[in-house]
C-alpha cells in the first residue's frame, strides 16, 4: 500500500490523460480531439463515501447532451473508479477551447455544477485552465471566496463542506 493513495490516484489520472490522448490520436488520426474529465469537487473523504457517485454519471450525460446539441461528435467515453473517488471521461471532436467553454457553462449554470470538476485537455493531453480562457476562478462551496485559496489554506472543516454539499443537493 502506498503512503499516499490519494496522490497516487491523481498521478494515475494525469498519466491516463496523456495515454488517452495518444490512443485517440492513433484510433482517429483524422480527428481533432479534445478531452473532458469529470470528478467530484469535494474533499476526498466525501468523494470516496459512495454517496455522490451518481453526480459523475449525471454530468457525463449532461455534457454528452450539450455536445450533441452543439453538433459535436463524441469519439469515445468511459467511467473510472479511482481510490480517491469516481471519474468519467470523454473524447470530443472539437477544439479544446470549445469543449472548455461548454464545460465551464455546465459547472456554472447547472444547479449542482459547483460539485463537479470538468477538466479539459487538448489533443495531446495538456490541460486548459479557466485562467487561460479568461474565465473567473471557481468559488469556494462554503464561503464564495476564491476556492483555491480556501483549499490551499484549509479554511473550512470537512463537516462544514459536507453540510454545504448536502444543502446543494437538496435544492
Amino acid at each position, binding site marked *: 500500500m502506498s503512503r499516499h493513495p490519494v496522490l497516487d490516484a*491523481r498521478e494515475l*489520472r494525469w498519466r491516463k490523460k496523456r495515454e488517452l490522448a495518444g490512443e485517440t490520436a492513433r484510433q482517429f488520426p483524422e480527428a481533432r480531439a479534445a478531452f473532458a474529465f469529470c470528478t467530484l*469537487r469535494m474533499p476526498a473523504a466525501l468523494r470516496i463515501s459512495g454517496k455522490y457517485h451518481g453526480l459523475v454519471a449525471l454530468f457525463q450525460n449532461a455534457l454528452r447532451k450539450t455536445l450533441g446539441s452543439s453538433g459535436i461528435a463524441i469519439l469515445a467515453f468511459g467511467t473510472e473508479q479511482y481510490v480517491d473517488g469516481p471519474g468519467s471521461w470523454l473524447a470530443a471532436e472539437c477544439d479544446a477551447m470549445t469543449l472548455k467553454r461548454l464545460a465551464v457553462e455546465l459547472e456554472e449554470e447547472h444547479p449542482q455544477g459547483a460539485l463537479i470538476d470538468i*477538466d479539459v485537455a487538448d489533443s495531446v493531453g495538456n490541460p486548459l485552465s479557466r485562467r487561460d480562457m479568461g474565465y473567473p476562478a471557481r468559488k469556494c462551496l462554503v464561503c464564495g471566496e476564491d476556492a483555491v485559496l480556501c483549499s490551499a*489554506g484549509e479554511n473550512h472543516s470537512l463537516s462544514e463542506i459536507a453540510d454545504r454539499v448536502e444543502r446543494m443537493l437538496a435544492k
Partner: protein
Amino acid sequence: MKALEAVTAGSLESSDVLITITPLDGEGVEYVIDSIVIKQFGKRIRQVTEEMTRQAGLGGARIHVQDRGALECTLRARLETAIERSTAS
C-alpha cells in the same frame, strides 16, 4: 547526489502540484516556481522546495514546480517522490 534523469511527480489537477526535475551540468540547482497562488503562498513554496532539495543533498538539477493550489503536505510528498525518481539508478 546528482539528478540522473528527467522525471516528473504529481499532476496539474486542482489542489495538486507537478514537479519536473531535469539534470543540469555542474552541482548547482535552478528553481522555477509557478503557482496559481504565488502571491499568497509563493514564498513558502520556494522555501519548502529549497529546504527539501538541500536536505536530500540534490545537485545538478533544474526543479520546476507547477502548483495548482496544493497543500504543503502534498508539495512535500511530490518533491520527495520526484527527488527519489530523479536519483534512482
